């Protein structure tokens, strides 16, 4: 049974529907990426999974539980971690507090932040006392991923995690994601624009257009024709 299963999900903003009957299944332990042009509904999809957007019809099953109507904070506690587009660092909380806040949803409570995180993101250690909102864009992105990791999630949803990140860190993020996937068995769903990155990272892909999933498969099958058809200008 897939870890995350969306069936026939429709989502609207007010009267205007933006997702139409989306079906999507992500297996435990895999890395999937969602591709698509601007405004096709990728962000909306992730937001619906974490519960920030209401699903008007269809159902979302996570880890064998129906969560379609579950409040967001409970979904987080069930093990869904969301790293949004635009990072959403809590601006006036210190980096340390931001990280600690990330542990709220964790099952086993611990006071200390595991050193592991600083291994993944050494930059954070120097800035622990600074306010999160003062970091540069790229630094905030790293903080956001670190924060997401700290809840020990079963699945991580990342919305364009490489936007505004310097190449070497993009590389690291890629490695980190692979590593946490490998070592901790965390399932990863990434919305991505950069196809190269997606190809290298993910095993599975979904391509969206106009609010629907129009193609999916293994990244090996992500042919140039597909790319051209759905992602080119």
């Amino acid at each position, binding site marked *: 049974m897939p870890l995350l299963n969306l069936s026939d999900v429709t989502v609207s903003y007010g009267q205007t529907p933006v997702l139409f009957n989306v079906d999507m299944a992500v297996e435990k332990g895999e890395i999937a990426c969602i591709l698509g*042009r*601007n405004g096709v509904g990728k962000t909306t999809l992730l937001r619906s999974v974490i519960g920030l957007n209401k699903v008007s019809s269809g159902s979302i099953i996570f880890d064998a539980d129906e969560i379609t109507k579950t409040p967001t904070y409970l979904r987080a506690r069930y093990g869904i971690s969301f790293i949004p587009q635009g990072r959403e660092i809590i601006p006036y909380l210190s980096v340390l507090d931001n990280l600690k806040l990330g542990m709220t949803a964790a099952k086993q409570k611990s006071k200390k932040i595991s050193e592991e995180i600083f291994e993944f993101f050494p930059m954070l250690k120097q800035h622990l006392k600074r306010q999160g909102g003062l970091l540069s864009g790229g630094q905030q992105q790293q903080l956001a991923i670190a924060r997401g990791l700290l809840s020990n999630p079963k699945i991580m949803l990342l919305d364009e995690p490489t936007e505004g990140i310097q190449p070497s860190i993009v590389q690291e993020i890629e490695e980190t994601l692979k590593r946490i996937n490998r070592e901790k068995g965390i399932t990863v769903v990434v919305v991505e624009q950069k196809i190269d990155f997606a190809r290298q990272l993910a095993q599975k892909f979904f391509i969206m257009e106009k609010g629907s999933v129009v193609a999916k498969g293994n990244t090996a099958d992500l042919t140039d024709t597909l790319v051209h058809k759905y992602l080119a200008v």
Partner: protein
Amino acid sequence: MGRLRQSTVPVKLLAIGGIAFLILAILPFVAGEFQANLMAKLLLFGVLGISLDLVWGFTGILSFAHGVFFTLGGYAMAYYLKLNLSATANNYGGTLPDFMVWNGLKELPWFIAPLQFFPIAAIAMVALPAAFAYIIGSFIFRSKVSGVYITIITLAIASALTTFFVSQQAYTGGTNGITDVSRLTLFGGLVIPPIGLYFMILIFAAAVLAGSYWLTQSNFGLVLRSIKENEQRISYLGYDVASFKIFIWTLSAGIAGIAGGLFVPLNRFISPVYLGVAFGTQVVIWVAVGGRGTLVGPLIAAILLGQLQNSVDRITQDWQLIVGIMLLIVVLFLPNGLMGLLPKQFKLAEQSSLLPAPNTTSGFVQARLFDWFTPLQRMVQRSGRSLITWSRTVSGSARSSKGRSKLK
């Protein structure tokens, strides 16, 4: 926005406005003296609401000090009327106003004396509040102060000026304010009858409404609205945000001042009660209930709330409680105020058009509510044609001629 503006003062809007104006014009002849008087007062309050809407609804500056501008204009006029009375029919001997006599003043203070001349008083009625607003505005808008801090400053101004006016009894009449004023006379001796005053006020209100509407439909209105949302961003587009804010703030104070000036001959007194935070809050309520950024909304709200208060008072002494509950209901269930009720009907009409329904009621969009065949829309309909024309113009770039029609 020449063409746009011409066509957005559309026939429908004019018609609705004209009918409303007519109704108000015959009102004093059918509704009796009290209603006429009350409506005149509520019209002035409505104008005060419009003036606050300009700075709050459009520019995002929430002010609790609009009563201050109103009152400053009112005092300018009240001094004139009082001094006019003193010269002819002062009960308490001499030409000094009664309250000055009681407080031991021997002669008219130099800063009040000029107000005995009508032209000076008439100018002061606008200039005093406007100048005060300009000084305050230049002081605060050219700094980094923003948002709720400006609101707090206006609270402090209202509160401080109330205390100040009350404590300066010899000059201001203290809590009593200036009472016992003469009627307004024009052209040396022509006493304006109540009905004349009513029409003066009605025409003034109509003029302010039309003028504000015209102003906010211009590019200027657009700038105001963007200041409201994010004042920093627009300065990187080359707009001097401070001068826009100071301008609208001063203008609004001037309008409020005239309303205050006309209020005195109508009400026959002015007092610090209109300076206070309570009255300032009242003005804020009119705008909020009427709908921010709608101009006509505050006017309607002032009239409706005034009438509501007047009639609920007949039912229960605890009318304040009822008004409070109604306010809560409006806030919770009508987030866009009374005017928020309107567009829905218009939206129905609009579904036939190509455009998505607007979800704001201000500025451009509001204009379109009334006349959905604006050139703007025609422009969109034409866009297919222009696309071809334009792609020829830029044919040099092969890629861009393909157009970025990815979302089509």
